[in-house]
């Protein structure tokens, strides 16, 4: 199956709709990444800077909602890890499967559910939704794919759902 009806290799088609890489973060949600995100975007929302406002509105501190994905991103390095540690493994699997050395994200949807709080431990799973046939853009030639991710906290509550569209590509003229 693909978004434009083109045939896909069987091994890829078999993965469409199948939850992959269910995993739990190796660290708890903490506030410093929220402050880093606020600093990076010059965001003065008092919900995240003023304890009294946080207590009034959300019963205490919550993580900046758009930090959702970062809690499942691996450390850049950790003992025993070999090679580059990457988030969204399905995306990198598809790059490798189609021998597409470069990739960018083109679309992102985030649906926010129960707020994430400091001390939470987030889990997720990735689901490949579709892969296009070959496409050419100004970046190069490759394929688009859509990957959905569900995030839950340690109580099993849904905290968010994301969908990414990625474009894996080979720059025109680049050899494999």
């Amino acid at each position: 199956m693909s978004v434009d009806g083109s045939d896909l290799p069987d091994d890829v088609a078999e993965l469409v709709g199948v939850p992959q890489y269910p995993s739990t973060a190796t660290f708890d949600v903490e506030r410093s990444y929220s402050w880093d995100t606020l600093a990076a975007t010059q965001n003065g929302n008092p919900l995240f800077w003023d304890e009294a406002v946080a207590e009034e509105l959300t019963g205490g501190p919550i993580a900046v909602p758009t930090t959702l994905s970062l809690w499942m991103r691996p450390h850049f390095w950790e003992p025993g890890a070999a090679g580059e540690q990457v988030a969204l493994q399905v995306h990198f699997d598809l790059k490798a499967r189609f021998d597409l050395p470069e990739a960018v994200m083109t679309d992102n949807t985030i649906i926010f559910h129960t707020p994430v709080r400091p001390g939470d431990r987030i889990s997720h799973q990735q689901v490949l939704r579709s892969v296009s046939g070959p496409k050419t853009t100004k970046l190069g030639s490759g394929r688009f794919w859509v990957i959905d991710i569900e995030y839950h906290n340690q109580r099993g509550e849904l905290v968010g759902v994301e969908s990414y569209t990625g474009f894996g590509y080979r720059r025109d003229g680049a050899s494999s």
Partner: protein
Amino acid sequence: MSSSAPLLHGVVTVGDTLPVLVVDVTPTTVVLGALASRDWRPMHHDYKFATERNGVADIFLNTPNQAAWFERYLTDWTGPRGRVGRMTFRMRDSVFPGDEMTFTGTVTDTGVDDLGCGWVDVDVELRAAHGTRGDRLCSTCSARVAIPVDADDNPWSRTAEQWRP
């Protein structure tokens, strides 16, 4: 700081525009945003990788950081009681150091769901201007944000079964 005097649902109408936000993008903007979101991919901090491997003009804003910029833009307008329910954005072009990034927004719909939650739909455009790269539409975002229906309402108080983003 105070959470008083929130933007209320009743004063928002379709066609309302949000205050414009203009930001000068530096290499630090890009790198800080990437590291804040634990995005270690080199196209967000390594000029040679971005230009020689990705084939783009420079390092560029990563996806989660763009989401965070959209969130900041929306909640600058709503105040802290504003609760973003969902956002969908398409990245048509990249945002690079040296760009002047401009956010504009327009209310496209308003409504109150059957649980009493007040919603506004907002379309946001992120444009970037640069001396040689020109003025580009980089990203378009459609967002759905809950804002209080009255002074006593707090969208954040809605638990899972009362929250339909």
